């Protein structure tokens, strides 16, 4: 998995790339959580994530909940079709902030 972060105003956009499974979740958390902890809003761009399993979905849920606790938000942008299908299977499309 690779990633890139861009900053604009108070929003950090994280572009994730690759497949997110149990083996990658700690790495993904290490990228996302410190930004949420810093009080910034986070946009997760998932256009180049072609596969995500339940571990990856758990990171999305944790990120969303952590942001709520911190009074910020996590927006999930440009979700690939395959990942959107998994999000919908988990019935999370109304819970997570999808754009």
């Amino acid at each position, binding site marked *: 998995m690779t990633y890139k972060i861009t900053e604009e105003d108070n929003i950090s956009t994280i572009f994730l790339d690759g*497949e997110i*499974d*149990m*083996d990658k979740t700690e790495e993904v958390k290490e990228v996302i959580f410190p930004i949420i902890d810093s009080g910034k809003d986070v946009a997760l761009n998932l256009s180049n994530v072609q*596969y995500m*399993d*339940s*571990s990856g*979905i*758990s*990171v999305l*849920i*944790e990120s969303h*909940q952590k942001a709520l606790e911190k009074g910020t938000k996590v927006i999930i942008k440009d979700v690939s079709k*395959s990942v959107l*299908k*998994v999000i919908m*299977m*988990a*019935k*999370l499309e109304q*819970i997570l902030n999808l754009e």
Partner: protein
Amino acid sequence: MTDLNHIEKKAFLVKSSSLKDVRTFCREVFEKLNIEQNLKDELVLAIAEAAQNIVKHAYKDKPDVNEIMVVEISLVNKEMKIAFYDMGTPVDPKKVKHREIDNVKPGGLGTFFMQEIMDAVEFKEGKKPWINHLVLTKQL
């Protein structure tokens, strides 16, 4: 999808870095079987979740062992069976359940995905040397 009966199996080290190899193996098999993309994605997810459960749960108490798990994919008369064999801690099928889907929290989704995608998710008696034997079934 091809009508040919087909069976393939492969062994993987029980560790999280093997999950990518499990997915690659499955995709290659499904490619040979001409399974359409949507179904292929679903089957790969179900298989990967089962393999993840072996790494995460069956080997929770022995993370450093160098053991293998076997994934076997068979298609006979349009019935797809995906069998898993491991030598981890015995699984009590009664304790294998997903969380309530409306109770949004991290974790507990892998089993739910398997059940959503497959027609049957069954633990069978493992034959020596195997301890656990999980079979996922779907009519194609």
